């Protein structure tokens, strides 16, 4: 129960941070990515602020034998810099530049009730399903239609 409450509070603070930082406004994202136009460096400061906190927090927290409310840490295990990583990042980046939304701000912006955001999130979820159909076709042990297996460990 404490674990779930903590996840809720984290999600809430995360959303407030995204909103206050300007990242729920696609114009701020597109403005940052427009290096050859009216460049808006705000997104860099969001990253610097978030990384400054998490850089220190990570080092302190993972020294602990366990998290507060669960038996162990679930940490990213993959280290390979391979084609799926780079292709996936490039495809994501293209969509990010095109729409000005990444997954976090899109979820937060659902609260606005905007049809544009709802369309984006539905398309995003469809894209995730398409990936799982291609990566794990029907019959594969991790097929999209199976619901009894863990999502792969080592997810970022």
């Amino acid at each position, binding site marked *: 129960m404490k674990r779930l409450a*903590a*996840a*809720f509070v984290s999600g*809430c603070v*995360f*959303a407030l941070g995204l909103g206050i930082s*300007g990242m729920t*406004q696609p*114009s701020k994202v597109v403005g940052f*990515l*427009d290096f050859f*136009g009216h*460049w*808006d460096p705000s997104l860099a400061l*969001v*990253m*610097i*602020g*978030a990384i400054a906190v998490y*850089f220190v927090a*990570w080092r302190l927290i993972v020294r602990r034998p*366990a*998290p*507060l409310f*669960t038996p162990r840490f679930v940490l*990213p295990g993959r280290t390979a810099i391979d084609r799926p*990583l*780079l292709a*996936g*990042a*490039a*495809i*994501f*980046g293209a*969509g*990010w*530049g*095109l729409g*000005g*939304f*990444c*997954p976090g701000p*899109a*979820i*937060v912006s*659902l*609260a*606005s009730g905007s049809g*544009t955001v709802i*369309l*984006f999130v539905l*398309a*995003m*979820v469809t*894209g995730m399903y*398409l990936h*799982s159909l291609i990566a794990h076709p029907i019959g594969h042990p991790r097929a999209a239609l199976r619901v009894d*297996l863990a999502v792969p460990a080592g*997810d*970022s």
Partner: protein
Amino acid sequence: MENFTPIASLIGGLMIGLAAAGLLLSTGQVAGVSGIVAGVLRPVKTEVAWRLCFLAGMLAGGGALRIYLPHAFTFTVARSAGAIALAGLLVGFGTRLGNGCTSGHGVCGVSRLAPRSLCATLTFIAAGAAVVYIVNHLFGGYV
């Protein structure tokens, strides 16, 4: 640089880092939003609950923003419905193929100085910049 909001963006960024650190400390999980959404789509009994709570918290935070900071939801980028749908598809597919987005790779992974996340982050920023260049400077800002 007329739209630059250094103070608000830095404060918001600190809050994002704090929220991600809180999730790690309390649940032992990395705050990667694309992975959390995907984990709800392919749920596992013990793993779905915290993810749903995190997402519910994000929506609650969004609700608070709607009341106290409505400016946060100004969508002034001119895009057709087709462009938004294509953008969503690319974001959903790409974040699964690359195992992360701006939060998982960009914030959490870069903070750990993980080479994998550093490469992903540089790649998605470069790809985003290329698309914005095409849209803003070759298509006049509307697609």
